[in-house]
């Protein structure tokens, strides 16, 4: 499925009234996962689709394609995503990052042979993976409920709108329109093959895979919105401190 296809899918879902705000629960708080029932069904579908289609395909791709080529191809597609990163950096007033992205794009497109290589990183030009979901988050829009979208995966109304705009700014979308439909697909399969260890880890480590994926998605997106400079080599932004505190009113039994 290409980004374009995903965008279309999301668009139809949003238009058909999937953009909702859930009623508060009995204790007055919004339930954390009001769509859990349908989300789990979609998740089961997505998971099977991955296990039986995308993963074997990615494995086959990895088998016939040298690692170096897959990494380079990943860099090429990443470089191509520059327009979206430029716009979303600017929309968050991240001018230094937008400048760095621009110099990166210029360097990697020329010296880096159309983006297949990444000399810019060696020159200290950082990459800043902003997207529209982060822009909307930074602007203060609430996320809405967690929402598992068929094929596209974990999301929420805010991120789904973000994905629509990302798709509009993605050159691959237009390659699709001018009749190069395979490109987005190759990009997706290639990405899946490069992400294989992480997917395996997630499946391995989870006790309840759906809840684990939901939580990881929320933690990651919130961290990106709080601080998009994840790529810098500084110590991380920490989750709430109380995560690490043992309550004092209890006797430690260890």
């Amino acid at each position: 499925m290409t980004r374009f296809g995903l965008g279309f899918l999301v668009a139809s879902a949003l238009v058909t009234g999937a953009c909702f705000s859930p009623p508060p629960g009995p204790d007055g708080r919004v339930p954390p996962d009001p769509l859990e029932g349908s989300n789990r069904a979609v998740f089961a579908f997505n998971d099977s689709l991955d296990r039986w289609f995308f993963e074997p395909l990615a494995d086959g791709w990895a088998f016939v394609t040298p690692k170096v080529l897959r990494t380079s191809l990943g860099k090429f597609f990443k470089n191509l995503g520059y327009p979206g990163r430029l716009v979303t950096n600017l929309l968050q007033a991240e001018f230094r990052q937008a400048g760095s992205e621009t110099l990166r794009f210029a360097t990697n497109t020329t010296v880096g042979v159309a983006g297949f290589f990444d000399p810019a990183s060696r020159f200290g030009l950082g990459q800043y993976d902003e997207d529209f979901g982060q822009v909307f988050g930074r602007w203060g829009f609430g996320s809405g409920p967690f929402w598992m979208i068929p094929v596209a995966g974990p999301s929420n109304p805010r991120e789904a709108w973000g994905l629509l705009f990302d798709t509009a700014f993605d050159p691959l979308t237009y390659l699709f329109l001018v009749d190069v439909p395979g490109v987005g697909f190759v990009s997706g399969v290639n990405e899946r093959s490069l992400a294989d260890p992480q997917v395996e880890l997630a499946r391995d480590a989870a006790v309840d895979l759906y809840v684990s994926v939901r939580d990881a998605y929320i933690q990651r997106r919130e961290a990106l919105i709080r601080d998009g400079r994840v790529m810098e080599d500084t110590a991380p932004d920490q989750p709430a401190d109380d995560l690490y505190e043992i309550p004092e009113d209890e006797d430690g039994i260890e």
Partner: protein
Amino acid sequence: MTRTLREGSALRRGLGCAALGVALGLAGAPASAEGAVDDAAAAAARARVADTVERVLAVLRDPALSGDDKRARIEGLAYERFDFATISRLVLARNWRRMTPEQRAAFQEEFKRHLSLTYGGSVDRYRDEEVLLGATRVERNGDVTVRTRVEGDAVEPVFVDYRLRRREDAWLVIDVIIENVSLLQNFRTQTQELISNVGPEGLIEKLRSKNEARTAKGG
């Protein structure tokens, strides 16, 4: 009290055993008198992570070891270097209070197995990645977070942070944070949901059956 020790550049880690010494040397950045304690803590935690990374990579890259040998050794390292008592406690959070001492002990035992099996599973996931040490930070409560970057096939490196807490003389890992996703938080969410749906016994049973299935198929 939160301080960041910034090393000029990330330290490339190979197989050489000189790396531990280098890490110690680099981490001992001079600071004010107040910072000296922090620096010592950061250096000790960092050295611990450096040593662990080195040992794990040495196992993963040893051509003389079988997959099962590697798995067993890495599980052994996990047993030695994670603080399972604290992790279990923090994962259970408020539910700790609602569980009997037997349930707590059973949970801790199964969870320990679960984490060690997951850590041992890196044998299957390993794709010749390099691990570099990044910045170190002393947290407000005295824990130390050590950032590592894992460079593999993917276009971008994956940041994996280890949060360590001092326990007697050793620095033990209490959380692994992958790309800003805290596994502790992740397990806490799963655990809370499972306990409210199937109760503590259901949770322990689920962990147990998953562990048994994984042990049977070798990780």
